[in-house]
């Protein structure tokens, strides 16, 4: 015989009646309270699944309900009369430390795997379907905006420009894609020494970078790095990866509630920076391969990178460092290639 204290509700009103529930081994149940006496049996009631230590519901046949805090006793009845195996199982799973740890491991593994392999793969696959024409349009539009916002015309003299374009032309013969490559020379006080790549084949180099470089080989190394960004479609991929990561994280963790879905999206920023760091390393590798093919000393590349780093003044440092791997780390990786 098990005795449980609880509350009875008839389902017709919100009146709460304190009751004592007595369950006999035969399955007979006696519920008694103030002006209340019900005789029933365990096969006529339905015990709700246990959830943590929250108050337990027992639904009776006629829409009435019992509530009790004595989860232990209800579990005992549950086990004795062999009811509700599946739900009992869930609670046992949630209570067991080893299963909780395993769940943690599986979830972390899944999220990590999705970000490490799933998202880049998905974006690579989607990007393949984008026509060249569209990429060129995006690039041209981007250049126009940058011209309005950041750039003025180059001050490099025409013969030197011709020389640069000739070298660039030679570099682009190594392209494996159908892009119409063009080198755009621009002057910019705000940007300082820099080079950037836009989707569809546009590479921009600033006058300051031209002046900073000690020789042609250093310039060609930087341009090869930028060309890699276009060849591998890094620009579009990073755009896509941003949204795919956010979708993925929201899909896995987002359903929980509106307050957290906002914050879950924030760590994706860190992930996005990680992707762009990977793109930088990939572009470095492309440049190294090109230099080695051309039998140019790789130290020219590391030299121009350290020169670049010295020019980055504090204002732009925050933005640069966040998406680029630390320069000395990159240089160290490049130097490994020399051996």
């Amino acid at each position, binding site marked *: 015989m098990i005795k449980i204290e609880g*509350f009875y*509700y*008839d*389902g*017709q*009103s*919100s*009146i*709460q009646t304190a009751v004592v529930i007595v369950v006999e081994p035969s399955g007979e149940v006696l519920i008694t309270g103030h002006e209340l006496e019900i005789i029933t049996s365990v096969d006529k009631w339905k015990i709700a699944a246990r*959830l*943590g*230590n*929250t*108050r337990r*519901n027992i639904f009776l046949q006629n*829409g*009435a*309900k019992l*509530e009790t805090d004595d989860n232990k006793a209800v579990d005992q009845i549950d086990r004795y009369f062999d009811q509700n195996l599946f739900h009992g199982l*869930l609670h046992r*799973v*949630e*209570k067991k430390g080893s*299963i*909780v740890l*395993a*769940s*943690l491991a*599986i*979830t972390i593994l*899944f*999220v990590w795997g999705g970000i490490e392999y799933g998202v880049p793969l998905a974006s690579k696959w989607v990007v393949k379907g984008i026509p060249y024409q569209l990429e060129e349009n995006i690039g041209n539009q981007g250049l126009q905006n940058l011209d309005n916002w950041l750039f003025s015309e180059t001050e490099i003299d025409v013969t030197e420009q011709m020389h640069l374009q000739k070298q660039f032309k030679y570099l682009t013969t190594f392209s494996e894609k159908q892009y119409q490559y063009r080198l755009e020379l621009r002057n910019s006080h705000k940007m300082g020494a820099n080079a950037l790549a836009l989707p569809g084949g546009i590479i921009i180099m600033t006058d300051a970078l031209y002046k900073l470089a000690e020789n042609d080989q250093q310039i060609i190394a930087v341009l090869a790095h930028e060309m890699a960004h276009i060849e591998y479609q890094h620009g579009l991929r990073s755009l896509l990866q941003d949204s795919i990561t956010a979708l993925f*994280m929201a899909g*896995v*963790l987002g*359903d*929980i*509630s*509106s*307050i*957290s879905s*906002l*914050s*879950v999206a*924030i*760590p994706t920023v860190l992930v996005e920076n990680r992707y762009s760091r990977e793109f930088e390393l990939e572009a470095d590798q492309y440049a190294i391969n090109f230099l080695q093919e051309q039998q140019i000393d790789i130290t020219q590349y590391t030299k121009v990178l350290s020169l670049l780093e010295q020019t980055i003044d*504090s*204002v732009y440092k*925050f933005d640069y460092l966040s998406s680029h791997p630390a320069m000395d780390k990159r240089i160290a990786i490049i130097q490994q290639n020399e051996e």
Partner: protein
Amino acid sequence: MEKKTQQFEFQGQTGEFFKIWIVNLMLSIVTLGIYSAWAKVRTRKYFYSNTLLMNTPFDYLADPIKILKGRLFALALILIYSFSAVISPVFQGIIILIFIPLFPWIIIKALKFNLYNSAYRNIRFHFNADYLKALWIFIGLPLVVGLSVGMAYPYFVRERKKFVLDHSAYGTSKFELSATTSQFYSVYLKFLALMMIIGLLITSIYYSAQFGDIAGIMLLPALLLIYPAFMLIYIYLYTTITNLSINHTTIDQYHFESHLETVKLCWLYFTNMLAIMFSFGLLIPWAMIRTARYRISCLVLLADSEINTFIAAEAERADAIGEELGDILDIDVGL
């Protein structure tokens, strides 16, 4: 006559909920998302059952199979919409035209489902509204807001709240919102004034950086302050509107009191955000529990008479907990 107050309480524990949460996630992943319907019910049940009024918990009774069906329905709508774009823009236009009148119907269904599956003392909540009224509130009024260049927006917010509350019931007792339109307008005017102050600050900082001598380095911390500033104003709007609505909600002779504080809620959200960020999501259960604890601690039920005697005297009819509880427990009812 002295007013009796009953404080809502929240008893959820982070440690206990973390285990439920992580097992939910794992099972959802392993079953390719199918379990997520069960996970949703279990999560919501945990929050309902740990919310107590007069030492008695609320109850969430939804059937996971029905949630699963609802999700498949939503997925089907999204797929139809996406594929319509592939077929032709005209076809997509037709699909949108079909979806628009469907929208109020979906809202009514969602509110009905959420309230019907919420219960207290074995009495369910209810939602009952006719389609035409919903069509006016959710399609007609937004058009009016657009035509009035936003001037009608506070009116729209008030009508929307009133629609949801006035059609909600606990047992046979109906809720009622008595907050007036002018009260909503005065909240939005204050909100607008705050927005303008921040907007002016930002433009002046921007221009002094552009044309003055302030270096770009000064611009960064100033720009970084924009996000928290807007967050503060937004949460101010949210707490004022929530408090206003709850404080003017009645059911029979009961009414409610809500005293959410902007600064406290802001701090809560800010620390939640940092914690979730630096734990890569693992502190989500902690954030959910402490948010619910604060929000529920701000909610009070007031009655002219002794609450217990009321319940004993009045059979068939029942005492009450508001739809606004939906906001607190983060149900989709809040709209």
